[in-house]
């Protein structure tokens, strides 16, 4: 029967059915049609009207100028009018600023004693203008005062020249007439090209999100996929039809959003741009049409990725959990592409998502070039094909329909997972590093201790907790939160208290020869990290306890569990790496995470030893204790002596052989205890305790 029918005909049949059904889904329609057609114009016009009204109100509101000193008549006249209200501010100098801060006046102009006489003697009068740059009304007042003073100055200058019968050109040897060659609409397009592509890429992704889930995991959950798979049609045709339906919805969503945004911006924000002297159509419709065309390959790419990922899930909710990180991974490059300094080159044209965002930006700004544009489109299509092939493979597998653990009569709700996926862990690490770069580091520059606390708890621990909570992970197993044996704790105590010294010796003997730490950096570390001005308890909490808990949750919790295959779990475990490789990887990631080439070696060693500790003891708690003691010892030593780094503080030139031998002995004993304390993490959520 079906032998004579082509796969294409069946895919077309599936496509039409899926499209029809999806377009009857309220949620899809909401995202695809209602959001762009109603929300943007409403919000856009509303915002623009509000901004316009605010601006008009501000412009009508006269600025209140407090005048300290006695203004001469011409100045008093210049500072009176529709937009300026001057009043005498008879307060001592210290209180003038207070009046400005309290909002009693918008600016304070101080007129020196004898100003009028000095002017009459053809001297220069120095006027002091006090204003608050952070207050818009104050900035406006400043501008208005400066304008008034400029007019007054011009008048005085003209009078002085006239008194000497000199021409005005004497003091105006140059006159510059400037004109921007950018057409008004290019300015507008330039402003919009920054935001629009990101919004549209985001909407294409959102357009693919729900249909991809509904047509795969949703169908599985509703029990219709099983029926569909008993029909005599190739699965390739089924996945092709579904993929095309998702891609169509995503494309339509993108185009509708683009059109609606373009229209909203053209109509709603037009007033705002007009006020700024920009007139005419902001984005030509031809540019919008080209951008819409460029969206098609990206819609194909996102749809293929989402259909592939959602097919792995067993339920709608699980698919949502899986696709949310995918969504974020796609959104981040789209945002990055909008940063200044990025442009569409043959190289960036090969980076997925970034290329389409940059291309859309160039198309809207009317600056797209043929070669990189073509390359970006071809590359995106190629990625879409690869993703589609992967989706096809997933659909062929039995796992697609029935997960191995899914037995007849099993509960519908997916159980908590014992371990995170490698992709989830990788995404988490990238997210945390991006957050630290963008938020944590600037905060630490403003205030070290508060910055570190926000970084550790808010930017490291919180995302880990969010992954466990929303990724439906079993916290005990996924993070290794288990009660360790007393032997494991004793081992961590000994090894943790001595490790910093040994790492320090190594840094001193190896690193200082290969890659010496600059003196200035050492001084900086000593000054900031080992400051005796802060209470010791604060330092221990911020620099020892917080990293010990938060960084361990990320590195020896999520990352280790996602990358390591315990021998007990055998070949069927999903995680790819055996113990040695996982230890090295964990150390490397920990080293890279610290973003300092001077700390690469110590942080790598520390990370690897901590990974080994977590593996051997079956718990993350000994690793936390180890990390805490290591940092605490370094802080204590660093406060007394000259620090080298957090891992190797207190050494400097004060190396002592007996001390090193003692530390080595303690460390070896500690590691031996850790090594013998258990077989390592179990694969199950509630594995047997260590013997």
């Amino acid at each position, binding site marked *: *029967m*079906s*032998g*004579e*029918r082509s796969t294409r005909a*069946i895919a077309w*049949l599936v496509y039409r*059915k899926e499209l*029809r*059904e999806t377009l*009857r*889904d309220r949620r899809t329609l909401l995202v695809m049609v209602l959001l762009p057609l109603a929300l943007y114009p409403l919000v856009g016009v509303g915002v623009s009207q509000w901004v316009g009204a605010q601006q008009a109100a501000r412009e009508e509101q006269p600025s209140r100028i407090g005048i300290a000193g006695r203004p001469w008549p011409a100045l008093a006249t210049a500072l009176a009018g529709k937009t300026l209200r001057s009043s005498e501010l008879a307060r001592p100098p210290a209180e003038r600023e207070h009046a400005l801060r309290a909002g009693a006046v918008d600016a304070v102009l101080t007129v020196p004693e004898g100003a009028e006489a000095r002017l009459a003697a053809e001297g220069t009068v120095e006027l002091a203008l006090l204003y608050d740059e952070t207050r818009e009304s104050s900035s406006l007042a400043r501008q208005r005062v400066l304008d008034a003073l400029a007019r007054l100055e011009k008048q005085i200058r003209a009078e002085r020249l006239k008194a000497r019968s000199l021409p005005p050109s004497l003091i105006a040897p140059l006159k510059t007439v400037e004109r921007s060659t950018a057409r008004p609409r290019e300015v507008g397009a330039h402003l919009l090209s920054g935001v629009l592509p990101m919004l549209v890429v985001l909407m294409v992704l959102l357009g693919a999100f729900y249909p991809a889930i509904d047509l795969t995991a949703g169908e599985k959950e*509703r*029990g*219709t996929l*099983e*029926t*569909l*798979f*008993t*029909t*005599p*049609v*190739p699965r390739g045709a089924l996945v092709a039809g579904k993929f095309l339906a998702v891609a169509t919805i995503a494309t339509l969503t993108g185009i509708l959003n683009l059109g609606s945004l373009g229209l909203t911006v053209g109509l709603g924000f037009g007033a705002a741009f007009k006020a700024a002297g920009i007139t005419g159509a902001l984005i030509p419709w031809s540019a919008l049409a080209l951008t819409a065309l460029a969206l098609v390959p990206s819609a194909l790419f996102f749809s293929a990725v989402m259909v592939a990922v959602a097919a792995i899930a067993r339920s709608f909710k699980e698919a949502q959990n899986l696709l949310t990180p995918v969504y974020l991974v796609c959104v981040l490059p789209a945002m990055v592409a909008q940063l200044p300094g990025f442009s569409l080159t043959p190289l960036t044209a090969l980076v997925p998502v970034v290329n389409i965002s940059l291309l859309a930006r160039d198309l809207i700004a009317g600056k797209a070039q043929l070669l990189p544009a073509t390359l970006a489109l071809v590359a995106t299509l190629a990625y879409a094909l690869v993703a589609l092939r992967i989706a096809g493979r997933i659909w062929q597998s*039995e796992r697609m*329909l*029935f997960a*191995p*653990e899914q*037995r*007849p*009569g099993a509960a519908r709700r997916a159980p908590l997972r014992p371990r995170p996926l490698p992709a989830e862990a990788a995404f988490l690490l990238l997210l945390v590093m991006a957050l630290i770069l963008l938020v944590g580091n600037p905060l630490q520059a403003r205030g070290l201790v508060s910055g570190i606390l926000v970084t550790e708890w808010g930017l490291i621990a919180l995302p880990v907790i969010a992954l466990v909570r929303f990724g439906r992970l079993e916290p005990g197993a996924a993070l290794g939160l288990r009660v360790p044996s007393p032997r494991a704790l004793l081992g961590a105590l000994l090894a943790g208290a001595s490790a910093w010294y040994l790492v320090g010796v190594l840094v001193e003997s190896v690193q200082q020869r290969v890659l010496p730490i600059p003196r200035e950096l050492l001084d900086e570390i000593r000054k900031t990290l080992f400051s005796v001005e802060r209470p010791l308890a604060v330092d221990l909490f911020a620099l020892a306890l917080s990293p010990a808990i938060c960084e361990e949750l990320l590195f020896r919790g999520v990352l280790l569990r996602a990358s390591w295959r315990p021998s007990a779990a*055998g070949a*069927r475990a999903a995680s790819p790496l055996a113990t040695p490789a996982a230890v090295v990887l964990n150390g490397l990631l920990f080293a890279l995470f610290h973003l300092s080439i001077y700390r690469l070696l110590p942080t790598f060693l520390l990370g690897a030893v901590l990974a080994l500790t977590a593996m051997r003891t079956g718990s993350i708690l000994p690793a936390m204790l180890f990390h805490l003691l290591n940092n605490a010892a370094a802080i204590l030593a660093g406060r007394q002596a000259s620090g080298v780094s957090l891992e190797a503080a207190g050494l400097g030139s004060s190396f002592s052989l007996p001390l090193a031998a003692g530390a080595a002995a303690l460390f070896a004993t500690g590691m031996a205890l850790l090594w013998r304390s258990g077989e390592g993490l179990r694969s199950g959520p509630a594995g047997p305790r260590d013997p």
Partner: protein
Amino acid sequence: MGIVARELCKRFDPAGPPAVEGLSLEVVAGEIYGLIGPNGAGKTTTLRMLAGLMQPSGGEVWIGGHPLASEAEAARAALGFLTGTTGLYARLSVRELLGYFGALYGLAPAAVARRIDELSALLQFAPLLERRCAALSTGERQRVSLARAVLHDPRVLILDEPTAGLDVVASRFVADFVRDARGRGRAILFSTHYMTEAELLCDRIGLLHAGCKIWEGTPPALKAELEASSLEDAFLRLLARSERQAATEPSA
């Protein structure tokens, strides 16, 4: 030309116990074969392997004379499959749903329309044809599902607990439909929890326990062998005997 399964085997976990092991059975045209067993016995796994939804770890299957491994599409075309949890496309009307499946089975539009008329009259859902599937009651859904399964007039029917969750009236409706199909020479494999239903409906039954077929024959023969008054009684005795054997085997 019904169902033939030889030495079927399924392992989900290479290290764990098999879900189904060494299972052979044959269902001929004009026969209703009941697959019975406690929860977790391997019924659904067996039916899924027979329907080509799961790849067997070992063994062979023929559906309507076609080997499932090498002629999957022809085998599926000869098969109608229905489960108790079968869902319908909620946002399609009954007619659209049946039209879609008819097209997937390769029927011409005119043939689909004719079959929809026949089946909606036979299964009494003609007034529901334009209604969205989301608006159907459980009994109505099962009637539409039955129509969906036999739309292409398959020679073989596999029904996995088709009466689960149905009331007496709806269950009787399904039973009548199955008998009617037998009358028209179809080979029917039927799994159920309800012993009375199996006793009334099935020509032969196969009893599954822990993935193995522990008994096969007619319901009267099973009752006679175990000197039981009802099939349910016989089933329980057989299970107890099988468990006793399993307990003594490892030490033997």
